[in-house]
């Protein structure tokens, strides 16, 4: 996957692009954690508008990123999740743990 990102007004927006699966999951998680680690933003928004697909590998990626971000005392939210990834995340109950936002325009 390609990890696009922007840092504006204390919000780091991470925008992974492409399909997420076991093949790329740990590398992508590592790259996103590194960006958080380097920039230490007070807020991290994972914008999933460009991620049309994930399998269960994405569950560990979201949880891993969430733990890293909140471990730094920062806030974490997920935005613009498309239907197939949302169905996978809901199956794992992530909608009860993480903050999913809709229609975030940046």
């Amino acid at each position, binding site marked *: 996957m390609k990890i696009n990102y922007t840092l504006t007004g204390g919000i780091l927006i991470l925008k992974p692009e492409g*399909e997420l*699966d*076991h*093949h790329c*999951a*740990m590398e992508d998680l590592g790259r996103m954690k590194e960006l958080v680690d380097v920039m230490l933003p007070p807020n991290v928004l994972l914008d999933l508008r460009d991620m049309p*697909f994930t*399998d*269960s*590998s994405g*569950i*560990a990626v979201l*949880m*891993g990123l969430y733990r890293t971000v909140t471990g730094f005392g920062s806030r974490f939210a997920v935005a613009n999740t498309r*239907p*197939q990834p949302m*169905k*996978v995340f809901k*199956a*794992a109950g992530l909608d009860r743990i993480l903050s999913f936002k809709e229609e975030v325009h940046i």
Partner: protein
Amino acid sequence: MAVKYTEVNRFTVKFPSKSANEGFARAAVAAFIAQLDPTLDELGDVRTAVSEAVTNAIVHGYKDAIGDITMTVKLLEPDTVEIVVADRGCGIPDISRAREPLFTTGGAERSGMGFTIMESFMDSLRIRSAPGKGTSVTMRKRLNTRRYR
């Protein structure tokens, strides 16, 4: 009354357990079942289930090695897709335990949700496995094909 299924079409592929083939397996199934004109949601469900089964063979079946994975996809009448993913890897010692949500032997990289997702995204899931011999996962889903909508 039990539905009687007849085979209309099928294909089989065999590929090594390299993670680059996860995307290939999803794409191959999606291209083949286009014949049944599935909805986007159905396509998403089937692609997800295939990704889970193939990833399991790669990550668990052939944990420290590369081995062959065989995937057979059948189109059955009435309007059903059947997918069989088989490996000759380490096998599963306790299948009902493995099917439980959150059960994993994969550590922090895995969440123990693969079988639960296959089960809920497809209509049926059958697992056959023997330690040291391998695992085969058979899934079926009836598609609400556009002809009848």
